[in-house]
């Protein structure tokens, strides 16, 4: 008879705890500072990720209308059309029928997973709904690989985020800044910083 109960084994199939990484995000911090500087202004924000209580709680500090796009997974599955096929209709994928134009778009992780050939069309779709001077905040992987699917980002503070490390790996497009700007006509990078593990933080602004 065993004196102590044997420790529970990690049964096969038991989901592992998600792993996270903390990131200092100076471009996001400066964006928040700009928004804080104009407390009377009402901001129209579009988050392309799924609804997150964490994001909503953070942006509740502003007078803001917060739109949830929840399209990251869909974008990651889109494939470029064959030569005789029509391009995907982004008006169906992400309808932007809101009355007011957008001041900020959170594209966290989205640029990495949308096919390069589709990025200009998607960018144009967003641009049409942006106010002059609107911001786009994004993260781009600059090393060889990235998680197999878009991951979630939690806002820890105005200058810190927590990124899920996801599962599996796939090749990352590793866009250099100039290439990214060419793929997103109308948007110009106003701030860019290489963070941990090859994650590049971008703040774009509508020209």
């Amino acid at each position, binding site marked *: 008879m065993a004196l102590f109960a044997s420790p529970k084994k990690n049964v096969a199939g038991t989901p592992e705890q998600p792993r996270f990484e903390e990131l200092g995000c100076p471009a996001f911090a400066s964006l928040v500072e700009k928004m804080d500087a104009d407390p009377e202004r*009402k901001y129209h924000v579009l988050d392309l990720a799924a*609804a*997150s*209580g964490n994001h*909503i*709680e953070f*942006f*509740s500090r*502003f*007078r*803001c*209308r*917060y*739109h*949830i796009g*929840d399209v990251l997974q869909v974008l990651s599955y889109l494939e470029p059309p064959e030569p005789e096929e029509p391009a995907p209709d982004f008006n169906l994928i992400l309808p932007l*029928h*809101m*009355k*007011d134009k957008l001041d900020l778009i959170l594209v966290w992780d989205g640029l990495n997973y949308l096919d390069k050939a589709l990025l200009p069309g998607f960018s144009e779709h967003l641009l049409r709904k942006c106010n002059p001077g609107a911001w786009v905040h994004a993260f781009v992987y600059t090393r060889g690989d990235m998680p197999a699917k878009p991951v979630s980002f939690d806002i820890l503070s105005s200058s810190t985020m927590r990124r899920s490390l996801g599962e599996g790996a796939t090749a990352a497009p590793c866009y250099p800044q100039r290439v990214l700007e060419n793929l997103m006509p109308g948007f110009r990078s106003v701030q860019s910083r290489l963070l941990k593990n090859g994650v590049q933080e971008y703040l774009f602004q509508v020209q």
Partner: protein
Amino acid sequence: MFDKPKKEAEKPAAKASASPAPSKPAPASSSNSGQTTTIGASIKLNGELNGDEDLLIQGQVEGNIYLKQHNLTIGEQGVIKANAFARTITVRGTLTGDLNGVEKVTITSTGKVRGNIVSPKVILEEGATFKGSIDMDAKAAKPASQPAASAKSA
């Protein structure tokens, strides 16, 4: 027709100008004493719901829900296609429509909402599903004198 969660009715139930209308008086409990009227899981209402007491919906409602100064809860079994206006709104079930919460809107881990929310405080629990927009401008969620006061946008 209505569930009787606690006591026999002391006041009429939340008024439902519904189709089909309830065929007999709806047993319900008053809210001023902290009790809640329940619309049971087998009930289907089509029309406009007005009330002066807290309401828990486990059934199916299509139309508009207007609880002036009271709390609305959509239970886990509730399936709602309606615009709702209440002091606080808690969604544990499924709702399609616009929500106007004077104080707070909460979507719990089992809640699924598609629509627009206007409220100074919005809580989205982990696991909740929400697609739409949230107006977090405290000035936006003003009490209205008419049903279906929730903001239309997006």
